[in-house]
């Protein structure tokens, strides 16, 4: 990560100023409240100390840039509901007006978020036949033939012998890790892992160690140190070591250095847990994820996890592994035993979208979608970099964060883009480090070339206005007509 030095200084100063003003306002609020009587004498306070300081004094000031409600499916263009505030953003009220905006924020990598000509009729038929909810857990009465077919379909797609599917992606991570490992085990996770993994690791009771993001050499040194030390206090050998990494890191757009990490784990006999939430279906020649892209044999990755919310337009998460592992999970995982199973139409959407991606529906739309998302991502990223923006992420990755740094540029960028009918997602502290606030763009296969050009024009104008072009722009070369192969649908 390359940061302009002056920007770092001004960013720290801005946050210091915001913090100081927040403290000043809190001080006056406390003095004023001391005089007024409180009806809650003797009750414990809801928030301890400064816990809600960030929400009250920093987040609420720019609340209109987050949590925007939409009123149409999140396709390439969608309707954003306008909101107004009468008390300086403390509360927001929805109006009846909607804005038709270009969608650069949804995880709609393959374009399945809107109605699809193969998937939607089948899902509607399934909804009529099986009703929206199974009203039961998997073990009681919630396993239909769709569920069995879906698990087989997913296992074939991912390249593992068996798979198990849950109704929610977050829960897949946070409920599986405690089942796989317990006290006396070691979890080594990447420092930028998603909150669901952190939650699951904390809930498991195992010792958690963190290694520097995507740095296999640091992973090796942490492994060596931990294996030599053993369990804390007793120094007995660890019962099990699991290394958790993600395929594409959603805040960086970077691909994981999987071949090196897998070879290190094999050397030290640690298990590899790969979370492919953003990469399954979006990268790889046939969409099979980061293993296919980087040439790693799926037999080397012990546990592959993923979600269906991003590329498949459904909901839910899966775990794929060996037959013994999946059988063990079916006996012990609380989500399988006690949580309602995934709804039947969602299962049908998963099956149909996987069939489209693999080309089993009889057309080549799957291959076209994959080629289009790759083309779109590479084109957009290179154009943004030519304009002088600092864009993170590797080639072929559909997630591209544009670095903003200063806290004032976050609402400026977001609001100016919305005025020009482009909806972007901006991310700030504490989801990202304090200094590194960014606007995250997710490219979809349903974005056409005109959509991307409009987005580039708007982002270019707004970037100039807000001042986020931190790198020198490349000089305008002659307009070279790139031979566009006309896709016949």
């Amino acid at each position, binding site marked *: 990560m390359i940061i302009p030095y002056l920007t770092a200084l001004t960013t720290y100063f801005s946050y210091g100023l915001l913090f100081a003003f927040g403290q000043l306002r809190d001080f006056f609020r406390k003095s004023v409240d001391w005089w007024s009587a409180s009806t809650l004498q003797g009750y414990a306070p809801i928030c301890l100390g400064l816990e809600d300081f960030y929400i009250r004094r920093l987040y609420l000031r720019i609340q209109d840039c987050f949590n925007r409600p939409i009123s149409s499916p999140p396709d390439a263009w969608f309707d954003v509901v306008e909101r107004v505030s009468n008390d300086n953003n403390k509360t927001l009220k929805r109006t009846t007006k909607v804005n038709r905006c270009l969608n650069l924020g949804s995880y709609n990598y393959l374009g399945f978020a809107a109605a699809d000509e193969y998937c939607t009729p089948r899902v509607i038929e399934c909804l009529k036949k099986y009703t929206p909810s199974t009203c039961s857990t998997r073990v009681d009465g919630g396993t239909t033939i769709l569920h069995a077919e879906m698990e087989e379909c997913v296992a074939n797609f991912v390249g593992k012998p068996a798979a198990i599917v849950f109704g929610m992606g977050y829960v897949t991570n946070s409920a599986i890790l405690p089942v796989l490992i317990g006290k006396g085990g070691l979890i080594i996770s990447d420092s930028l892992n998603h909150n669901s993994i952190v939650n699951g690791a904390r809930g498991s009771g195992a010792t958690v160690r963190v290694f520097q993001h995507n740095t296999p050499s640091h992973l090796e040194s942490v492994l060596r140190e931990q294996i030599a030390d053993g369990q804390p206090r007793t120094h007995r050998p660890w019962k099990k070591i699991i290394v958790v990494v993600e395929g594409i890191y959603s805040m960086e757009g970077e691909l994981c250095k999987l071949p090196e990490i897998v070879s290190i784990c094999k050397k030290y006999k640690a298990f590899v847990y790969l979370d492919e939430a953003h990469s399954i279906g979006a990268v790889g020649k046939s969409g099979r994820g980061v293993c296919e892209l980087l040439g790693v044999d799926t037999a080397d990755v012990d546990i592959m996890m993923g979600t269906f919310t991003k590329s498949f337009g459904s909901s839910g998460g899966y775990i794929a592994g060996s037959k013994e592992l999946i059988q063990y999970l079916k006996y012990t995982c609380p989500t399988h035993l006690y949580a309602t199973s995934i709804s039947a139409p969602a299962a049908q959407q998963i099956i149909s979208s996987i069939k489209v991606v693999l080309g089993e529906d009889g057309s080549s739309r799957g291959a076209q979608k994959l080629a289009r998302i790759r083309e779109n991502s590479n084109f957009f990223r290179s154009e943004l970099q030519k304009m002088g923006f600092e864009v993170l992420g590797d080639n072929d990755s559909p997630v591209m964060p544009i670095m903003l740094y200063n806290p004032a540029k976050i609402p400026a960028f977001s609001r100016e883009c919305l005025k020009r009918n482009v909806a972007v997602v901006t991310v700030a502290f504490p989801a990202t480090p304090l*200094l590194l606030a960014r606007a995250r763009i997710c490219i979809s296969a349903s974005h056409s070339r005109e959509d991307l050009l409009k987005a580039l024009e708007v982002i270019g104008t707004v970037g100039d206005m807000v001042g986020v072009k931190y790198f020198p722009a490349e000089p305008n070369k002659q307009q070279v007509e790139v031979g566009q192969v006309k896709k016949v649908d």
Partner: protein
Amino acid sequence: MAILYVRAAPTTDLNRNTEWFTYPGVWSTYILILFFSWLMVLSVFACSPGMAWTVVHLSHFFVTYQFFHWKKGTPFAEDQGIYNRLTWWEQIDSGQQLTRNRKFLTVVPIVLYLIASHTTDYQHPMLFFNTVAVFVLVVAKFPHMHKVRIFGINADQ
């Protein structure tokens, strides 16, 4: 003008409240804020440079004592309160003592004290207040004072 870039190394600190201190530019910002506040005090109060340095030193003492050694926990709720018993000073660098950041933060009040006492020519009563301030701050930053609450001041129930 050429733009100066720095490379930020990825950290392993999971505590978002203290992780920002490991990125480049923090030390320079801290020193620049102290210098500019001295200039502001000089221009607002029109006093001698020595008095201005004393004012900066004492307000620095109050602000850093309040935020580094008194307030506990983090200003957001995502970490579910695992740091609720620790002050900011006890949280940085995951509790490791005598790291570079801690040494820098110990040296700054000492240097400020030397500048303040030198520019006031070691006169009373400024010298007394400055000495008390630097004594309290430096003792609070000792490795042996990690998680120590004297006489139960600022301890939890």
